[in-house]
């Protein structure tokens, strides 16, 4: 059994070490993307005309090939993990910004009016009312962003072997070892599924207040479109 997961020594890591690295490189950018997307989305909700140009910018950024991104970034961040993670964070915005905007906008007018009338200031209203009610939409966005990020990390192999399971795929090709290729591809797919399942679990935990019938369809249309 242990031979199944034996890796060539030039990878300088065990299989599960690579899995851990892969997770890290995939999820930290999504988290960073979320931290950027929250204020940007809030700005788009408050200043309506900003939303269209912001969406346009995120889409253009998403259209930049990762390789081109790396070439530019290498001058600043070198052959490091950071060079892989920055493009991934930028890519996540194309899903996260519309997810949060749609989520926050889905809060019914009368709920907002009631909150204001009860003496909620804008910050309290955002944190205690809008964000919690937007949570299902935000998590739906996080699911798409995370899964796409998990699959994109492998490209990092191209710059100084920062591709985690992607490096393994490369080794498999070089040494002509199908076992390594399978380990990489199946490992990445399983990882994506597990991350997705964890986020579904998080949503169920956070939203006991959602009607059961709509829980399964919590992913808003815009996110589905953005996910393509």
């Amino acid at each position, binding site marked *: 059994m242990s031979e199944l997961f034996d890796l060539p020594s030039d990878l300088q890591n065990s299989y599960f070490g690579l899995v851990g690295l892969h997770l890290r490189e995939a999820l930290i950018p999504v988290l960073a993307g979320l931290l950027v997307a929250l204020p940007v989305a809030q700005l788009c909700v408050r200043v309506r005309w900003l939303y269209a140009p912001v969406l346009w910018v995120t889409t253009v950024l998403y259209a930049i090939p990762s390789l081109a991104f790396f070439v530019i970034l290498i001058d600043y961040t070198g052959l490091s993990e950071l060079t892989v993670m920055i493009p991934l964070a930028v890519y996540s915005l194309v899903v996260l910004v519309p997810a949060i905007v749609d989520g926050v906008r889905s809060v019914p007018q*009368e709920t907002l009016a009631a909150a204001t009338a*009860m003496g909620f200031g804008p910050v309290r209203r955002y944190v205690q*009312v809008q964000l919690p009610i937007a949570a299902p939409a935000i998590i739906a966005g996080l699911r798409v962003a995370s899964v796409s990020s998990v699959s994109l990390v492998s490209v990092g192999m191209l710059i100084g072997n920062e591709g985690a399971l992607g490096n393994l795929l490369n080794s498999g090709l070089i040494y002509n070892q199908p076992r390594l290729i399978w380990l990489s591809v199946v490992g990445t797919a399983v990882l994506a599924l597990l991350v997705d399942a964890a986020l579904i679990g998080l949503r169920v935990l956070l*939203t006991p207040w959602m009607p059961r019938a709509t829980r399964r369809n919590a992913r808003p249309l815009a996110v589905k479109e953005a996910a393509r």
Partner: protein
Amino acid sequence: MIRIDSVTKRYPDGTVAVDRLSLDIPDRSITVLVGPSGCGKTTTLRMINRMVEPSEGTILLDGVDSRQQPVNTLRRSMGYVIQNAGLFQHRTILDNIATVPRMLGWGKEKSRARARELMERVGLDGALAKRYPYQLSGGQQQRVGVARALAADPPVLLMDEPFSAVDPVVRKGLQDELLRIQEELGKTIVFVTHDIDEAVKLGTMVAVMRTGGKLAQFAPPAELLSHPADAFVEDFLGADRGIRRLSFFPSAGLELLASPIVAVDATAEQIAAAGAAGAPYLLVTDADGKPLGWSEPRELTAGEIKTDRLLSYGRPFVTGADSLRAALDCAVLSPTGWAVAVDAEGRAAGVVSQQVIGEAIRGAHAERRADAEPGADGGEIQKVAP
């Protein structure tokens, strides 16, 4: 007292939502703002808690300009009930109701205890405390909305078309409940509606507003119905304002006839005596005196009255408690043209014909004209259930 002093709301695009409105809203009573859509009634309500800032004029609370205190302090001192309730869907019923007390720093336990007390007050089953809003019916949600507004015991309650989105049966229940709660708590309530029937039923004072944000008339409902200020108000009140006005006349003065009533186990002599009184129909009651139905005297045979052959008596009115409008309605609905009056226990107290009710209406109108000329304080007119 809330004094709205020549307040105008003009939007940047030039629309005037409220135009130099002045209104004195009396304490511890329900003041209804009513009018067609676009008359500025909701804008007026929202200027009281400064969700909308007036362009001109001032709003005084007990003589103090409402802009004197921080806006959120002002809002927390006024309960607010909105159409569709506007509950926080992500919080339990109990936590929804406890919102304002928690913000005011009452502490978790005290706030929740208060919330439980209010659930009972608005007629909600305590078992709903841990539920979420989506698990409640529209009417229940609206009760939660009222409880939430009352939670911190504010002296003022602002209600913005709170019952418009529920079906008529539930709405009637909520209205009755509001009147009952108001009886107990005596809040200063400002209530916005587009439904003139609701305004007449709930209001101690009713402000009718017209498109363009102008006040058309400010009067107690009875005066509104008897003396509409102009053609607009008259039109807005609807074609049957005369009938609706009867809601304000008690049925207590009606002359009830007890002679055409026979019990189901009556003797031949009793039936003959009742028939001899001259009424075209006799009302048959059960042994307890509760009405069963009408019959012509010659159809009744002592000892073998068939209750399933009796004519339906429609709906009875409660003598004293119900209004002349209810009595007239009963008479109109009754197949015999006679209304059945019952006492509080539901026992037949007497019967009365349409003619007698008509005379009572004419008499009441004449009396009302004599002692309440327009402009006189109509607030003393006792409101009875319609």
